[in-house]
């Protein structure tokens, strides 16, 4: 299993332990689905993820730590949104 897939598994496991964040995570997943996703699948844009990774960790190749992902979903849950 690649390091990226292993990390996805770790992040998913961390999320499964927090049912209070499931809805916020689902909404987050909806927000990062790109335009015209039916051509490439409903997955976030690689360029966007690389940019975010570089901004936070200094490299686009960084894997988000489960604790950071959970903190981000908590932050999203508390965000005074939705944006409109």
């Amino acid at each position, binding site marked *: 299993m690649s390091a990226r897939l292993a990390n996805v598994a770790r992040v998913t496991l961390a999320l499964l332990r927090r049912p209070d964040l499931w809805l916020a995570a689902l909404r987050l997943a909806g927000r990062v689905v790109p335009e015209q996703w039916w051509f490439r699948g409903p997955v976030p*844009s690689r*360029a966007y993820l690389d940019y975010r990774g570089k901004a936070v960790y*200094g490299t686009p190749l*960084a894997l988000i730590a489960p604790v950071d992902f959970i903190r981000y979903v908590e932050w*999203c849950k508390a965000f005074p949104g939705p*944006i409109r």
Partner: protein
Amino acid sequence: MRLPGRRSDSGAAWDLPVAVGRLTLRNPVVASSGTYGYGLEYRRYGDPRQLGAVVVKSLTVDPRPGFAPPRVTLLKEPGSMVNAVGVPNPGVRAWGDTILPSMRELGVPVVASVWGVDADSVVAAAEILARYRGPIAWEVNLSCPNSGHDGAPVSHDPVAAAEVCRAVRALAPEEVGVWAKLSPDAPDVTEVGSACHRAGADAVTVSNTFPAAAMVTAERPSHLGEGTGGMSGAILRHHVRPLIEKLGSSYPDVPVLACGGVLSSDLAIDYLDLGARAVQVGTASLYDPRACHKIARGVVRKLRARR
């Protein structure tokens, strides 16, 4: 109900022209520096041409790697964060040679931000930037130490800030706007803003992030590689709003771009009602990559309905 990934509207739905100095922006919503990449990274979440402008991450004379990670910490205050990214960028030349052409090809309304470790370095970056055509405006990031004065940051000193703006204005092509990005912690932000305008800045951006250390608690440990950084988001709004009001009443002739806690079209319109010509969206893009577009669309729709 909106399906995720629905194609954005185009055309007149985004048109609400607004004058900012010598420029006319398509609408009053601008992506703030350092929060929207070069527009290219977000292109699958909305057409950057639909925004008023995209301010790129500040550019320096030489490439910078940025600060040690972690560079962002999310605050408990809803919609707020502290960052210490450290102006990572490829340098003005590399940006102008390799990234600017892609932005122009995509039709991004580019605003180039320049920064330096001191006032002279800011002007040196602007000298290099002057070789490139394409940006509709230059934003001068004044949050740097003062090299020739009393040691205060340039953004705190009206005289030093005005000198930088005058020098950058002299370098910028006639058709290119010059915006001065102010710091919210200056002793008198309105004086600095007025001085910059008199020195040739077409508009002032109020404001940059507020210097802060991320709070660390047992409940929510968080830290930054650099220790301290700049606070932004909803929490910054409490500081920026009075500044916009004060600048509007003291110097109504100074065009203002409001930046700080623009998390919805209603909050954007509040700044516009206070007299700001346009708003810059930053932290909201961390929550939603379509934030700029959603806010722009809301602003255009609601302000048109008022007419």
